[in-house]
């Protein structure tokens, strides 16, 4: 079965410092991986995805993610955090074995950036 895990419930960083939000995956076949962000009382916004190709994927708002096949990881990164980056972040994998190819989500990681 396809699944993702986000091992940290919360990540705290100071503004200006680099941030990493971790995600590991378990899939049968090629992984299709996604990161979404959710601000309070809002829907999920797409940040970036890995389908194939370069292991470093660049996305919205200065975020990037590194795909590592040997470690089955897809960590979200940003070189310099902003207070406005504080939100709930979800990693997801597409379930290609299901007819609807729905996204399967991790439990989410709350990112808190302090000024």
């Amino acid at each position, binding site marked *: 079965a396809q699944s993702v895990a986000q091992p940290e419930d919360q990540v705290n960083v100071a503004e200006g410092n680099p941030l990493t939000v971790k995600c590991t995956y378990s899939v049968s076949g090629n992984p299709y991986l996604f990161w979404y962000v959710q601000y309070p009382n809002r829907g999920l916004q797409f940040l970036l995805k890995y389908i*194939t190709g370069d292991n470093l994927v660049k996305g919205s708002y200065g975020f990037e993610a590194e795909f590592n096949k040997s470690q089955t990881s897809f960590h979200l990164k940003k070189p310099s955090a902003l207070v406005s980056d504080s939100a709930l972040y979800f990693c997801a994998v597409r379930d290609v074995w299901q007819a*609807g190819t729905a996204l399967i989500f991790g*439990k989410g990681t709350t990112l808190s950036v302090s000024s």
Partner: protein
Amino acid sequence: NAGVTQTPKFRILKIGQSMTLQCAQDMNHNYMYWYRQDPGMGLKLIYYSVGAGITDKGEVPNGYNVSRSTTEDFPLRLELAAPSQTSVYFCASSNPQGSGSEAFFGQGTRLTVV
């Protein structure tokens, strides 16, 4: 471009009442989904549809029903509401061409059953 629109944004139901959560998308996506989000649990798939007239169960379908009469609309019906259905509900859609397509989400419906 409105994307995915959900109504209502908030609702309080009494135990045993019924309601329909509305979802509409204007991107001509064939694939649509309903998820529920509970604190610390991520999003769980309730139902999905791969096109008009075609629906199927997801991970947590009990207590819910869906229909898909048009490409644009995918309403979620709650019959005999229970406190366990207190949650935030998200509708999403995606382009079926390739597994690399991201899903687009509505703003959510916050439902409380008392």
